C-alpha cells in the first residue's frame, strides 16, 4: 500500500545532536528509516507491552530498550524497528499521542539504531529531560534529578 505524506508522518523538529554526519544526511535517513523513537515511557513499561501495541501496525524487526547508562535499567524510551517504512508510518499515524501503560507516548522518526544509542545521555545516567524537569512523575523516578539533588530548593522534595 503506497502511503501519502500527511502531517502525522512529517519530520519533527528534533535532531540528534550526537549524529555522526551532516544535518542533511540525518534528514535523508529520517525520510527513509523504518526505525522509530518512542518517548515518555514509564520506567516500568516492558518490552512485552511495547511489542503488543506496536505489532498492531506491522511486523516488528526488533525493539531496543533505552537504558540508564550506569544502572542498565530501562529509563523511559526505546527504539522500535519495523521491516517496512509503511508499517512505521502507521505507528506514527495511529500510536503517536495515544496511551501505553497509561501514559501518552511520543513516536518520532529515528535515523537508525547504532550501538551506544540505547543509553541515556543525562549526567545521572537517564535521559536528559529527567535531569532538569521539575514535576513529580512516579513512572519516571519521581522528581527530576536536579530537584532530587536539592539544586532547585529542598522544599520541592516534599510530596
Amino acid at each position, binding site marked *: 500500500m503506497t502511503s501519502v*505524506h500527511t502531517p502525522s508522518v512529517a519530520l519533527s523538529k528534533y535532531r540528534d545532536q550526537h549524529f555522526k554526519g551532516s544535518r542533511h544526511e540525518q534528514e535523508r535517513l529520517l525520510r527513509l528509516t523504518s526505525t522509530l523513537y518512542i518517548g515518555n515511557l514509564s520506567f516500568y513499561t516492558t518490552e512485552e507491552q511495547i511489542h503488543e*501495541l506496536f505489532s498492531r501496525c506491522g511486523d516488528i524487526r*526488533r525493539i531496543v530498550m533505552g537504558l540508564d547508562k550506569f544502572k542498565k535499567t530501562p529509563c523511559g524510551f526505546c527504539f522500535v524497528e519495523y521491516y517496512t517504512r509503511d508499517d512505521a508510518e502507521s505507528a506514527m499515524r495511529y500510536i503517536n499521542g495515544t496511551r501505553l501503560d497509561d501514559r501518552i507516548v511520543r513516536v518520532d522518526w529515528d535515523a537508525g539504531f547504532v550501538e551506544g544509542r540505547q543509553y541515556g545521555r543525562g549526567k545521572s545516567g537517564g535521559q536528559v529531560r529527567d535531569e532538569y524537569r521539575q514535576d513529580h512523575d512516579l513512572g519516571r523516578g519521581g522528581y527530576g534529578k536536579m530537584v532530587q539533588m536539592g539544586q532547585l530548593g529542598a522544599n520541592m522534595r516534599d510530596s
Partner: protein
Amino acid sequence: MNRRRAYEDDGDFYGERTRKRRRVSENQEMEERLETLILRVGENSSSSLESNLEGLVSVLESDLGNFRSKILRILSECPIKMPEKCTIYSTMVGLMNAKNYNFGGEFVDHMVKTFKESLKQCRWDAARYALRFLSDLVNCHVISTNSLLQLLDNMVDAANEDSVPQVRRDWYVFAVLSTLPWVGRELYEKKESALENLLVRIEVFLNKRTKKHHNSLRVWSVDAPHPQEEYLDCLWAQIRKLRQDNWAEKHIPRPYLAFDSVLCEALQHNLPLIHPPPHQDSFEYPMPWVVYRMFDYTDCPAGPILPGAHSIERFLIEEHLHSIIESHHWERKDCAANLLNLSYKDKIPLEYCIVEVIFAELFKMPTPRYLDICYGSILIELCKLQPSKMPQVLAQATEILFMRIDSMNTSCFDRFANWFSYHLSNFQFRWSWDDWDSCLLLEPEHPRPKFIEEVLLKCLRLSYHDRFKEMMPETYSKLLPKPPMPTYKYTMDGAASLPGTATAHKLVVAIRQKCTPEDVLNELKDLPNPRETSENDMVESTFNPLKIDVFVQTLLNLGSKSFSHTFAAISKFHLVFKSLAETEEAQICILHNVFELWVNHQQMMVVIIDKLLKTQIVECSAVATWVFSKEMVGEFTKMYLWEILHLTIKKMNQHVTKLSKELSDAKERLDRNAESSSSESEEETAAAGADAAATPQRRRKKPIGDNSDKPTEEQVERMEEKLEAAYVDQKRLFLIIFQRFIMILSEHLVKCDTDGRDYDTDWYRWTVGRLQQVFMMHHEQVKKYSSTLESLLFTSDIDPHILDVFHQFTALRS
C-alpha cells in the same frame, strides 16, 4: 532565482502543496487561484452558497479564454474527489452551460471520457461518482433525460451479459441504483414509463442472482434484531421505498433549485452512445458486502430520529461517512473532526451513525479496508472531541456487541476482542465488569465468557498481572489469566525422576559460563534417545526428543527475562537448534517444548515461534501440523493459537509475494536491456508505468542505459525456479491446513451422528469459524489454489456443512 536560505529547504521532502509556491508566472498564479476557488466552493463562507456560486461562475466565464482546459479538468475532477459536493459542481456546470452552450458540450464530452476511462481502469468508485454527476447534470438541464436513460439501460445490459463474473454484473446494477436518489425524481416527472421499465429490468436481474457469498460476509449468523442484508438487496429495498414515496428525496442539498428559472432556459446536450468496456480477465471488481447495522431508532435517546433501515437517507448518510473515512484515514484527528462536522449533523443522531459506520468497517468481511488500529485510534479521537456523548455511545455499542456475541463470526470476534482491549488500555481499563457477570454461569467455551477471557489476556499483554488482580471483581477470578511465568520442569517438584534433569542442570551452568554451541551439543551427546527403545532401529538418529526437550526448555528458561533475552539466546545457539531439528517431526518437537515451558505466557509463545520461523529453525508446514496435533487439542479454541497459524501463513505469503516481485522486476529489466539502449524517455515512462501498476512503491531512478545490474537469462531462470518452489510450499501449506480441518470436522460430525448427539457444539462452531477465518483472511492467496482445493479436498463427498464454507469463499469472486 531561489533566494531562500538552505535550511528552509528541509522538512518537507514530499509535500508539494505545503512548500511556498514560486512566483514563476502570473498565469500559474491565476490557475492556482482558480483551482482553490473551485475546490473550496461551498465551504464556510459568510455569504450564501447561491451568491458564491454566481460569483464563481462569472469569474470562470471570463477566464474561459485563457484557462479553458484547466477549468474543464478541475470541474470534472472535483465531483469525483468530493462526491458529497456533487450537486454544487453540477449547479456550476449548469449555470455555465446556460450562458455558454459550447462550453457545456465540451464539458459533457470531457466528463464522458472521464467516466469511460475509470471503467477501463477498474476505478469503480470514481466511475460511480462520475455516473452520478452525469445524472445530476440532467437535473441542471445540461444533459437530456433520454440520453441518460439510454446510458442507464446500456449499463443494465452489461448486467445481463453471459459468461462474465457475477461481481461485474452486480456492480453495474449497483452503479445505476446508487445514482437514482439524485435523478429519480426528474426521471419520474419527465419519463415515468422509461424509468419503470428500467426498474423492472433491474428487478428481474436481482431475482435471478445467486447470493452464495452472503453467509460468509455476515457478521452475525442470525437476523435478529437486525438482518445482515446483502448490499444490493438493501439498496434495492431503499430505492423501492423511494419510488413508493414518488421519488421525493429530501436529504441531498440541491443548489440548482434556486436557479431553476435560469437553468430551465438552457439547451441540453445528448450524451454520446456509451457502452461499458467488455470484461477482461485482468479486471477485478469490488467484492460484495453486507450492510452492517447495529442500531435502530429505539437505541437512540430522545432527539433527532435515526432514519429507518430502508430509507434512502440511511444509504446516503452511510455512504458519506464511509467516504470521509476513505479520504481521511491517513490523519485520525482530521478524520474524527470531519466525521463530527457533517452539514446535516443536527438532523440525525450523529454519534450513533458514526459508531455504526466505523464498526461496519472494522467488522467488514473478508477483511477490513484499513488497519484495525486505524479505527481504534479514530474512535479515541472522537471520544476526545465529544467527551459528553461519544464515550456513552461507544459503551452502549460495546454492550450491544457483547449481548449478541453468541452469533458473531469468529473473524469479527477476534477483531472485537482486540479492539476492546486496545480501547480499554487507553482509558485505564475502566469497565463495569459486574454488569457482565451473568456470563460466568455459562460454559467456558461459550462465546461470552470466552470473549472476556480473551480480552483479559490481551489486556494483560498491554499491562501487567497484578493490575488485573486488583481491578477485576472476585467473581471473575476463574477467568483471570495465570501469571505469565515459565514452567520449567527441571527445577520443579518431581524433577529428580525426569531423565533429563542432570543434563539440564549441567547445561545451565555451561551456558551461564558463556559456552559455545559446540559445547552445548557435547553436553547433550550422552542423552539417550527414547525413540530407540523400540525394535525398529531404522530410527532417524538425529531426531532425539529428549535432547530437544532438555536443550529448548533450558535455554529458553534462561532467556525468560524478556523477549530480547530469549531472542539473543536463540541467536547464539542457532547452530544447536538447526542440528537438532532436521526433520519436520523434530521441528514439531521443538514447538511442543516451547509450549510446555511457556504454556502460561501466550504472547511469549507467539513471538518465539515467529522468531523460529524467521531464523528458519522451523518450517511453516511444521507449525501448521503442530497446531492440529493431538497435544494441542486443549488449546485449539484459544485465540493465540490462531494468531500463530495466521502469522505463519502470512510469512509464507510474504515470501511468495517477495519472490514474485523480484522476478517480475528482473524480467522487466532483462526485456528493457534487450531492446535498443538509446535513451527513449517514453519507453522508460511506459516501463515505469507498467511496473508501477504491479509494484506501486518502486520508483525508477536508474538511467536507461545503465547495464550494471542487468540480470542474466540464467539468473532470471533461477528466480523462476525459486518462485515455483515457493508456490509449491505455499500450496502444500494450505493443503495441510485445509485437510486437517476437514479431517477433524468430519470426525466430529460422524461421531455425533453415531452417538446421536447434536453436532452443533461450541467446539464445532469455533472450529468452523476458524476454517472460515483462514479462507477470509488469506483469500487473495488462497484463490490461486481454488481448483486444486476443489479437486483434491473439497470434493462432493465431504459433509455439506464443510463444503458450504468452501463454496461461500469461491462465490466471493465468481
